[in-house]
C-alpha cells in the first residue's frame, strides 16, 4: 500500500514545462484533521485579490468608455423578462399592441393614449410571428379589450421556425417566470439603464466573435446575420431608432443589407422534396388563416375589438416583401376572411409619405407624426 507521502508526491507530478517545483512552504496545507477538509493553496490571497479587483475594474471601465465612444448609450435590453413584465400589466379591458418590430418602432404610446383615451400596452415582439401572442391573449377568457395587430405577411403566416419560437419563448417565460428571474430582471434593468456596454444583442462575447470575418465553407447552410442594436428601449418597451441609424451612413446601409437575406426565405431543405414542402407550407398557411379567423371571432364574441395594421416599409425591402407576399394573396384575404378593420398604410396619402431610413422602421421623430396621423384611422376602424 503506498504511503501518504508517496501519494502526495504522485499528486504533485506535473510537467515541468508549465509548473515550477514547489517550495516546502508552498506545499498545500490542510486544516483541522477532518477527512473532508479541502486543501487551500498557500498563496498571498489578499494581494492577489486586490490586483484582480483593480484589473477587472480598469478593464470594465475601459470597455464602457469604448462602448460610449462608438455611439452606445445606456438603455434597456428588450428581453423575454421585460416582455413578461409588460404582458402582466394587461387588464381585461386593456388596449394592447401585438405584432413584430414595426409597431415597436412606429407607434408612439403617448400619442396613442391622447388619441384613443387609454395607455396602450406594447407586447409586440421583434423578429416574431404575432399569431401565438394574439392567440394567447384571446384565450384568456377575461380579456375583452382592444388589439392593434401589426401584420408583416412573411412573418405572420410563417408555418414554423425561429419566428414562431421567439413568440413561444416569450410566452413560456411569461407563464413560468420565477421570483428569482423577476428579481434578476429588475437588477438587470437597474444596470442596463446606467451601463452602455450591456447590450445583449450586440456587445456580448458571442456577438463579438460572430463579427470576426471568417469565410465559411461554400456549401455551408449558415444562418443569416442579425442587425446590430439601433434603438433605445424604455420600461414600456417603446423603441426609438437612434439618430445614427436615422441619418445616412454606414450603420444605415449595413442594416438595410442585413434585412434582405433575413426577409428572404431560406432555400428548401435537402431532406424534404420541394413539392412536399410547398404542399406542407400551403396547408400551414391555410391553417393560419383559419386559426386567425377563429381567434378574431372568439375575441369579438366577448366584446373585444381588433384592428390589423400594415406599417410602412421602403426601398429594396418593400420590393422584396411585395414580391414574396403580394397583398392580394395575404393582406386582402386576411381582412376579408376575418371581416376585421384593416389599415394598409399605402391606402392613405397621409400615412404613405414616410420613408423608413433602414427600409423597415420609422425614425423616432417620424414615428410620433405617423402615430398622430394613424389615430383617426384607428378610431374609425374600432368604431370609437
Amino acid at each position, binding site marked *: 500500500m503506498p504511503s501518504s507521502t508517496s501519494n502526495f508526491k504522485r*499528486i*504533485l*507530478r*506535473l*510537467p515541468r514545462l*508549465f*509548473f*515550477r*517545483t*514547489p517550495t516546502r512552504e508552498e*506545499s*498545500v496545507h490542510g*486544516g483541522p484533521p*477532518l*477527512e*473532508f*477538509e*479541502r*486543501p*487551500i*493553496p*498557500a*498563496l*498571498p490571497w489578499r494581494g*492577489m*485579490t486586490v*490586483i*484582480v479587483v483593480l*484589473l*477587472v475594474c480598469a478593464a*470594465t471601465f475601459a*470597455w464602457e468608455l469604448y462602448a460610449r465612444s462608438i455611439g452606445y448609450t445606456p438603455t434597456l435590453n428588450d*428581453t423575454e423578462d421585460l416582455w413578461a413584465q409588460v404582458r402582466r400589466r394587461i387588464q381585461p379591458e386593456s388596449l394592447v399592441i401585438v405584432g413584430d418590430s414595426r409597431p415597436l418602432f412606429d407607434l408612439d404610446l403617448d400619442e396613442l393614449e391622447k388619441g384613443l383615451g387609454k395607455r396602450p400596452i406594447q407586447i409586440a415582439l421583434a423578429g416574431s410571428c404575432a399569431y401565438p401572442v394574439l392567440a394567447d391573449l384571446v384565450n384568456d377568457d377575461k380579456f375583452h379589450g382592444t388589439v392593434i395587430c401589426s401584420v408583416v405577411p412573411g412573418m405572420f403566416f410563417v408555418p414554423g421556425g425561429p419566428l414562431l419560437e421567439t413568440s413561444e419563448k416569450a410566452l413560456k417565460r411569461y407563464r413560468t417566470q*420565477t*421570483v*428569482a*428571474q423577476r*428579481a*434578476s430582471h429588475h*437588477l438587470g434593468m437597474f*444596470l442596463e439603464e446606467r451601463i452602455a456596454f*450591456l*447590450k*445583449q444583442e450586440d*456587445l*456580448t*462575447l458571442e456577438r*463579438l*466573435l*460572430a463579427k*470576426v470575418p*471568417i*469565410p465559411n*465553407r461554400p*456549401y*455551408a*447552410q*449558415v444562418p443569416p446575420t442579425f442587425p446590430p442594436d439601433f434603438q433605445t428601449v424604455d420600461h414600456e418597451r417603446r423603441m426609438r431608432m437612434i439618430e445614427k441609424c436615422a441619418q445616412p451612413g454606414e450603420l444605415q446601409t449595413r442594416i438595410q443589407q442585413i434585412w434582405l437575406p433575413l426577409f428572404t426565405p431560406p432555400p428548401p431543405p*435537402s431532406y*424534404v422534396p420541394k413539392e412536399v414542402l410547398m404542399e406542407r407550407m400551403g396547408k400551414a398557411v391555410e391553417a393560419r388563416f383559419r386559426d386567425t379567423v377563429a381567434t378574431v371571432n372568439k375575441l369579438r364574441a366577448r366584446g373585444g375589438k381588433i384592428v390589423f395594421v400594415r406599417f410602412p416599409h421602403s426601398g429594396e425591402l418593400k420590393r422584396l416583401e411585395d414580391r414574396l407576399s403580394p397583398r392580394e394573396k395575404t393582406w386582402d384575404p386576411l381582412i376579408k376572411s376575418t371581416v376585421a378593420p384593416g389599415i394598409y398604410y399605402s391606402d392613405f396619402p397621409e400615412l404613405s409619405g414616410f420613408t423608413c431610413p433602414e427600409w423597415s422602421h420609422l425614425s423616432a421623430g417620424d414615428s410620433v407624426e405617423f402615430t398622430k396621423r394613424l389615430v383617426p384611422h384607428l378610431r374609425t376602424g374600432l368604431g370609437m
Partner: protein
Amino acid sequence: MLFNSLTFVVFFAVVVTFYWSIRSWNARKNLLVIASYIFYGAWNPPFAALLFSTTAMDFWLGARIARAQGPRSRKLWLVGSVAMNLSMLGFFKYGNFLLENFQWLIARLGVIYQPPHLDILLPVGISFYTFHSLSYTLDIYRGVLQPTKSLRDFVLAVSFFPQLVAGPIVRAGDFLPQLVRAPGLRVGQFLWGLLLMTLGLFEKIVLADTMLSGAADRIFTYPGPLIALDSWLGVIAFAGQIFFDFAGYSICAIGAALCLGFHLKDNFRFPYAAIGFSDFWRRWHISLSTFLRDYLYIPLGGNQVRPFRAALNLVIVMFLGGLWHGAAWTFVVWGLLHGSYLVIERVIRIFFEEKAWANNFGTRFLAGAATYGAVCIAWVFFRASDFTVASRMLSGMFGRHASGDAILSTREMLQVTIVTLCMLLVHTILRDSNIETAVTRLPRWTVTGAWALMACAIILTQGSSNAFIYFQF
C-alpha cells in the same frame, strides 16, 4: 435561483455578510437554513414544503432505524425510507413515463387504454436532494453514521444551498460532522472559494453557453442528414458543454461552500483524460458514481461474486444510473452503453492487463482516445430528444450521410475545436493531480491574471441566465 444570475450575486453577498457577522453558531446555522429555503423557494415556493417533508420524514426514519432492536425491524424502517424517497421521485419524475410505457405494454396485449396525462411539474433538483436525504438513513442502517439529534442540522445538511439542486450529492455523513463546530473565517479559504466560483461561472457562462452550446444545439435539433464532420463536431461540442456546465456548477458549489467555511468533495477529476471506463467513472460525477457503488453495486455483491453476476451488477447499476438522469429510454440506453463499456473493459483487462505493452505510452494514449470516443458516442443518446435523432446522428457520424448537409459556420467549428483541444490538454496535464496543486505551483502572476481574465470574460459575456443542464435531473 441560478448561480449565474444577478439575484444570486446579491443573495450570496447578503448571506455571506450576515453569516460572518453573527457570532452564535446556532444563529448562523439558522440563517443558512432560511437562506437555503429562500434559494430553493425562489423557483417554486410550494416545492420548498415538499423538500421539508422529505427531509423531516428521513430524520424521523433515521432515528427509528437507530433505535430498532432487531435486524428485521431495522430493515423495515429502511425499506420505509427508501420507498418514501423513491415513490416521491417516481411520482414527480417518472409518473408520466411509467404511464406511457404501461399504455404501450398493454396495447401489445391488445388492450387499448388511454391514461390521463398527469400535469406534473418536476421539482427542480429532486434527484439530488432525494439522494442527499436518502444517504442519511442508508448510512445509519449500514452502521457508519449516528443519527443527529437536531432536525435543524439535518435540514441544513439536505438543503445547504450551494449543493441543493445540482450536486455534488453530499452525503449527510460528510456534512453533519461539519455542523458540530463553528468554522472560523479564514481569508485564504474565503478568497480561494471566490476564485473557484469565478472558475465555475467561467466554465458555465463562457465555455459551455457561449463557445459550445450553439453548435451542439444546432446539430442536435437539425432535422436533416448531416455530414460526418458536422455530426462529430456537434457531439464533441456537447461533450464539452455538459462537462463545463456540470463541472462548472460543482466548482461553484464547492467555492460557495468554502466561502461559508464548509468543505465539499470533488465531483470531477479531469474525466476526459480517463484511460478506460472505470477510470472515467472515478472522475465523472464522482458523488453519483460512489453513491451507486456504495448503496447499490456493493449490496448487489459488487465484484465479490462470479464474473457473470459481477458483470450483470455493473449493467444493473448503470441502467439505474441512466434512468436517474431522466425519464426517457434514451437515458436508459446511455446507461446501458456505459454498463457494456465497463463489462468489455473488465474482460479486456483479464486478458491483457499483465502484458508489458499494455502500459506503454502508445497503448495508454490509444486507450484514452478510445475512451473519449466511446464516451462521446454514448453522449448522443444522452442529448438526443428521441431515438430518431440519435439514429440520424450516429448515421452521420459513421459516414452514412456523405451527401448530407453542412450547417456549422467556420467560427463555430473553430470554437468547438479550440475549446475541446484546450480542455483535453488541461485534462491530460492534470490527470494525476488536482486543481489546488496546480494553482499552488503556477506562478502567482499567472493565477492572478487568469482570475482577472475569467472575471472579465464573464462580464463581457453578459450571461443570459441559462439554466444548468443538470437542473432537469
